[in-house]
């Protein structure tokens, strides 16, 4: 954690030579502690001192990169336990599990299913970024390598769940360039696994029978010089796994214990296998609480739609509302005589509404008001989406450009109808449905 001035002073050469611009080494140390100067501004610091300083000032949780090219993912690097304290930075990533214990048909079906979920939500690509390839106890190196090869063809970053160093080595031969994770180090094999992972240049996943063993093994790997790690916190059951995930993250961020300052893997296929709905529930829980990689048996639209929505919410920066530019957005080949539809400038609302409007195929002009980046009812409650603000915006920006005088307003602000009729003379105000999903039918009926 951040060092204080005295601790930094102990590491300076204590020459008081003033080359850093400070009258004394002590004054310099105080400035560094406050963040006003950088330690490198003293030309006389020893290598050792610099090393121990960078160690001491390193962030509590490491940032680990896996995958390559467009599929490179960043894990960890979190600084707070609750998003309102600042923000969460690197979102949870989801893996679908394949196993040598599955028959070929099941593997093929899974591999065909995975790419089907791939869509855009408010500018973010939603898909299962990872494939977890599990090696069961019976599998041979040939069998496992064949499965890894098959999975690799999907082009997603892989996690190799394998604790046999020989088999792992063989499998890495065929896929190490894609920078998978090798998840399989434990108290009894960590030296050999470390050698395999480091030789292949991949991140190593560590597990333990309990938190103490996980801690000791992680410390032992660090001692061997490997800090390119992720921690598999999956325990014997759901309760233990949740306890591990929370305590590992809390130890790193709250108690500054860097040995646990690594991203985590939570394997739901292990603790809730066979029950898709329970896995869905737990995927939500571990997205909220500290799963960096969450392994599931499947990722169909049923899981993806709520889960990716949750993740997008939890990992947005609380300091920056997502907004779109106010203005007129002609859609489906609209011209100045086309129907006018209005909503707010909150990115989520815009995304949902414009998607449905597009689907309707009806030519129209979508007018986005300046509503402070808030949802329909929130901005209405805050007085930012009112008869006054909408009519002012329309008079200034819409009336000079659009000839149509038919306006559809969101159903949730039906109360604005009278007010708008009074403030926008000549306009026909039509109350739309409450939810965007009803827009397609509504617009078709309106046309008819």
């Amino acid at each position, binding site marked *: 954690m951040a060092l204080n001035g005295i601790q930094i002073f102990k590491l300076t050469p204590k020459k008081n030579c003033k080359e850093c611009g400070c009258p004394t080494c002590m004054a310099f140390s105080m400035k560094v502690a406050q963040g006003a100067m950088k330690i490198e501004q003293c030309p006389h610091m020893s290598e050792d001192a610099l090393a121990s300083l960078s160690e001491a000032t390193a962030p509590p949780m490491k940032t680990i990169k896996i995958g390559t090219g467009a599929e490179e993912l960043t894990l960890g690097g979190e600084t707070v336990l*609750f*998003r*309102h304290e600042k923000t969460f930075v690197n979102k949870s990533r989801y893996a679908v599990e394949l196993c040598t214990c599955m028959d070929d048909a099941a593997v093929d079906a899974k591999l065909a299913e995975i790419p*089907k979920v791939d869509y855009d*939500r408010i500018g973010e690509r939603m898909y299962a970024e990872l494939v977890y390839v599990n090696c069961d106890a019976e599998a041979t190196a040939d069998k496992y390598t064949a499965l890894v090869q098959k999975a690799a063809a999907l082009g997603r970053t892989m996690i190799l769940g394998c604790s046999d160093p020989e088999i792992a080595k063989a499998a890495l031969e065929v896929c190490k360039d894609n920078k998978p994770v090798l998840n399989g180090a434990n108290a009894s094999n960590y030296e050999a696994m470390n050698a395999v992972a480091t030789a292949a240049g991949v991140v190593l996943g560590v597990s333990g029978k309990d*938190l*103490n063993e*996980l*801690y*000791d093994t992680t*410390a032992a790997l660090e001692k061997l010089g490997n800090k390119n790690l992720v921690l598999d916190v999956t325990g014997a*059951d*759901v*309760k233990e796994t*949740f*306890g591990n995930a*929370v*305590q590992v993250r*809390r*130890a790193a961020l709250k*108690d500054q*214990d860097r*040995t*646990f300052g690594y991203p985590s893997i939570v394997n739901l296929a292990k603790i809730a296998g066979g*029950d898709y*709905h*329970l896995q*869905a*529930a*737990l*995927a*939500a*829980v571990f*997205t*909220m*609480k500290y799963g960096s990689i969450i392994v599931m048996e499947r990722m*169909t*639209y*049923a899981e993806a*739609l*709520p*889960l*990716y*929505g*949750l993740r*997008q*919410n*939890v990992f*947005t920066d*609380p300091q920056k509302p997502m907004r779109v530019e106010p203005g007129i957005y002609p859609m489906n080949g609209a011209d100045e005589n086309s129907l006018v539809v209005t909503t707010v400038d909150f990115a*989520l609302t815009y995304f*949902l509404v414009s998607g*449905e409007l597009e689907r309707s195929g009806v030519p129209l002009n979508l007018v986005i008001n300046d509503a402070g980046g808030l*949802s329909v009812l*929130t901005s209405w*409650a805050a007085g930012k989406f009112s008869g006054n603000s909408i009519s002012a915006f329309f008079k200034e920006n819409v009336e000079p450009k659009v000839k149509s005088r038919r306006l559809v307003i969101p159903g949730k602000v*039906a109360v604005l109808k009278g007010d708008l009729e009074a403030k926008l003379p000549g306009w026909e105000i039509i109350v739309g449905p409450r*939810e*965007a*999903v009803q827009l397609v039918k509504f617009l078709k009926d309106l046309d008819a």
Partner: protein
Amino acid sequence: MPFNQKPQKFNAKINTVTVGTGDKAVTIGGNSTFPFYTFDAPTENSPKIGVEITDMGLDDFAPGIKAYYEGCTTMAEIAQKAAAMEGGDFVVLNLEGGDPNGVNKSTEELIAIVKEVADAIDCPLVVEGCKNVEKDAELLPKVAEALQGRNVIVMSEKEENYKAIGAAAGLAYNQIVGAESADDINLAKQLNVVTTQLGVDAKKIVMNVGTATVGYGYEYVVSTMDRIKGAALSQNDNMLQMPIITPVSSETWGVKESVATEEDMPEWGSEDERGIDMEVMTAAADLAAGSDAVILRHPESVKTIAKMIKALV
């Protein structure tokens, strides 16, 4: 050097509130840790699940929920079937039909339904208003009166109508007051303060601090609950120590992901599965953020969340 496990101990806890009477009464709250942090201290009462029905009958329910109630024709039958749902702890009656901007049922008509439901079941009951503040101010005091002795939660008390609802439910008829605010720790606290200033016992208040479906502005729900639990436990703020009850189903069953038919969105697959997961994941996230009770509809969601709670506690 072994791992230095540092449990987080708080000298404060969430109030314990018992709903209903007799054998089937349920107790919510009472915990002194963040949700499911059993490694810090044992969980006093595990979170509870309400099964939601509405005065509008089954018409607006998704097909998968309707199927569960097949054969029920009266509100009494629907209520009994809801009370029998596996994993459910109490029944929640939503009076949405009272909304003047909607069906606008009269208070008398709704009270008759409330009585029919209450007489049909012996498990705890929770009643939600229609959300129109004026109508609720008239309707909910009558609900509190009609259910005297049942120790129910009367939800939907808001800043705009707390005097009418708080006084009737919390004072005159000795029910539990469900105080509703919109995703803001200060508003939640303020409503508790003014409600207790009416003379309502702080231990007879539960909070609905705001809700949304995952993906729909849900980040505010998370942060509001995180902050409320944090203040309740670490600052021992007794105006934020009321248990949190969160209506989930009334939010999740309206969004496109749950209602779009498979015909409309063929690539999305089964409508029932999507609706269930939307409800399940929102409920799971609410519980992980701090809800002491959630309100659901689909039998599969209720079963799954009950299983999850059991696995975590």
